[in-house]
């Protein structure tokens, strides 16, 4: 087919947009809305609020509302009209290691007027985890009044996922085979898929699970059985059991984890210890 055949004149007037939206094809400039009058909506809600939302890779949006009661409670004055809004980047490391003190890094600060307002802030942090706070500065010290929600979650890179990792989606049963994939055995892929499928919101556990995956190269049937048990334990809502599971996974890591049968043995030890009220070696975590 000759390309010349598809030369077009282009569409005049409004044209169409590559980032189109179905409604844009239907809306007419002459559209009118015959309902007279306007709807009344609240100006504010008398609720202490600060919310941060991402706009794009360089900008965030923050809105806030501070009640008089909050100002009285926190700064003993309801007359304040000027505040500071700060934005902090949350270090990735803090997401996976609670034990060390990774402090938040201030990446933006501005003065704002009013107990109720909104700002757009330029923060070139490409969807890094962030949080915002509003407060007041007195004698050179920032007194925080409210802390916002956190936006963005850490990039998966920090959790150690390698490019070679493949997994099956949840659409398919595990029995399905697609033949050998270079760099990974079928068993490994199955394990990876299962572990990823049960990924917890708890990044500490996720980090450990992924390190475990990296250590596991060859699994025996017994190992697979152990993994089933881990999955069962993982489904428990019992925080104590989950803590023990973390310790168990850590002990796997310490022992280099992964050669045939080792997981089953370690898991047996783990169960025994948790049943008998003892502690996992070196963990200091008691039942």
């Amino acid at each position: 087919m000759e390309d010349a055949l598809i030369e077009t004149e282009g569409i005049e007037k409004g044209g169409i947009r590559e980032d189109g939206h179905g409604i844009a094809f239907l809306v007419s400039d002459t559209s009118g809305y015959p309902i007279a009058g306007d709807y009344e909506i609240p100006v504010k809600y008398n609720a202490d609020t600060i919310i941060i939302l991402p706009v794009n890779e360089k900008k965030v949006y923050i809105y806030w509302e501070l009640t008089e009661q909050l100002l009285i409670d926190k700064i003993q004055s309801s007359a304040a009209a000027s505040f500071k809004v700060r934005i902090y980047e949350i270090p990735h490391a803090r997401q996976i290691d609670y034990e060390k003190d990774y402090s938040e890094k201030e990446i933006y600060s501005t003065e704002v007027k009013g107990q109720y307002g909104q700002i757009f802030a330029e923060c070139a942090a490409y969807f890094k985890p962030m949080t915002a706070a509003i407060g007041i500065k007195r004698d050179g010290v920032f007194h925080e009044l409210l802390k916002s929600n956190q936006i963005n979650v850490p990039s998966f890179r920090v959790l150690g996922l390698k490019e070679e990792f493949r997994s099956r989606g949840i659409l398919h049963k595990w029995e399905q085979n697609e033949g050998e994939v270079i760099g990974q055995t079928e068993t490994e892929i199955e394990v990876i898929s299962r572990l990823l499928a049960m990924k917890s919101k708890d990044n500490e556990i996720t980090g450990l699970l992924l390190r475990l995956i990296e250590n596991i190269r060859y699994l025996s049937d017994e190992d697979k059985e152990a993994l089933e048990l881990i999955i069962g334990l993982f489904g428990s809502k019992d925080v104590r059991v989950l803590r023990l599971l973390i310790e168990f996974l850590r002990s796997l890591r310490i022992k280099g984890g992964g050669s045939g049968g080792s997981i089953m043995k370690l898991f047996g030890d783990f169960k025994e210890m948790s049943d008998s009220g003892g502690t996992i070696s070196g963990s200091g975590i008691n039942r």
Partner: protein
Amino acid sequence: MIKGYWLPVLHCHLPFVKHPEYDYFLEEHWLFEALFETYLPLLMRLKRFEADGVDFRLTVSLSPPLVEMLVDEYLMGLFIRYMDRLTELSQKEMNRVKNDSGMLNVAEFYNKRFIEIRTFFTGELNGNVLNGYKHFSDKGRLEIITCGATHGFLPLLRANPRAVEAQIAIATQCHYEHFGKAAAGIWLPECAYYEGLDEILKKYGIKYFFLESHGVNNAVPKPKFSVYSAVNTLNGLAVFARDPETSKQVWSSMSGYPGDPDYRDFYRDIGYDLEMDYIKPYVSPDGNRVFTGLKYYKITGKTENKLPYDPVAAFNKTKIHAGHFCSSRYTQAEALSSAMDRPPLMVSPYDAELFGHWWFEGPDFLYHVLLKLQRDKIIKPVTPSEYLSYHPMNQTVAPSPSSWGENGYYEVWLNNDNGWIYRHLHFMAGAMEKIADEYYDMPDDAQETNALNKRVLNQMVRELLLAQSSDWAFLITQATATEYSLKRTKEHISNFNALLGSFKSDTVNIDFLKWLEYKNSIFKNLDFRVFSGKNKLITD
């Protein structure tokens, strides 16, 4: 030997617009025009495939607001009136242009077409468009996927995670109610994604979704096969991303197929061209001119002296363009396959309303593309589920936050003009969650107070969901239908707060509630408990 796959997706969505308080309401015509020019003509082409014994594969996302409007008795009654009025106009037109053979040819074409579409709708589909989609879905040729409950822009609703979950929970429930099966996939409203959304989707049984190209290309780690293979998220959901090349060939305003001189000119419509005395019964009763769908001219070229439209020549041009599109895919697949361990996948998502309404000949183009691919057997058209059955093993990545809006992120839906909306949406979601928790264990009996409380709480959820529709923020940014979009947003915020206030003070106005239930009637079977943290469906 198959050299690649083509995955066409048509996203069908319109916001819920229903104004029984007016005999004629301009914005209700969005639905009628889309039905008359896009949804029904597309289904008619699929029926033609069936009649000819041609196999095909197509994926359509039917958004819950659209689905709810398509089964709304009031709106479908108006749609029949709309078709009748247009058929009457086309008959008048045949008389008006009887001495102009070029125009008469077009008028006769429209009259025949309008009658065929109406017959298809009332006869074959029994007045329910969903019957057509279900028919092809049952045959395994059409994969129907869902969308957000009211097309809420999920990354900006997540300040209240329950609001995001409710959008997904209600969407999947709506899909099941109307199609009798669970939705395997979702078209994320505006293709908008944020990290962690896949976890919520998984809870509701969603197995795959679509992203804009950069949502996958900027993933971590970088996908080896770019957008030419599915990838899996951490939660095991498959992700398909747009192939930019196929999009450009159809979307581009300058070099895309729809701009061909032989195709119908969108703007030259008799609703604007003819004397008001003649056209008045067919445009807005307040005298505003509107598109009628009767357009006599072809694009012709960069001139105001347009030539008459020739439906046969245009139809033949779609064959040429389909041929070009297919041969371009063969070349593309050849070039890509050398660097891949599997045949490349080319994903082509389009707004359905592009085909037929905007690009009048779009359904014919699609028909010829699918026909040619089926005959040539070089590129295989697939549905997402079919592709994943061939290639279940995919690279695991964390997709990047993205949308298909201008500049690729969220700014179309969050800027100086529409940022004010989110404060209200977040407050409403928070208040709804709190009150849903409080009344979660309320008995579902016929006792008057309980029944009334439930109706109020259900309607509050409807008002919140309707306010969340991304269409309003989009239109405000585009500065088209701005007044309507502003008022719709404010209307639902106002309704929600009025209901909340009256509920708390035990002063519910029954007439007001009844009116809202009738007018904003989306999701008849909705239960306010969807917003509660106690809801098993949501928390498990």
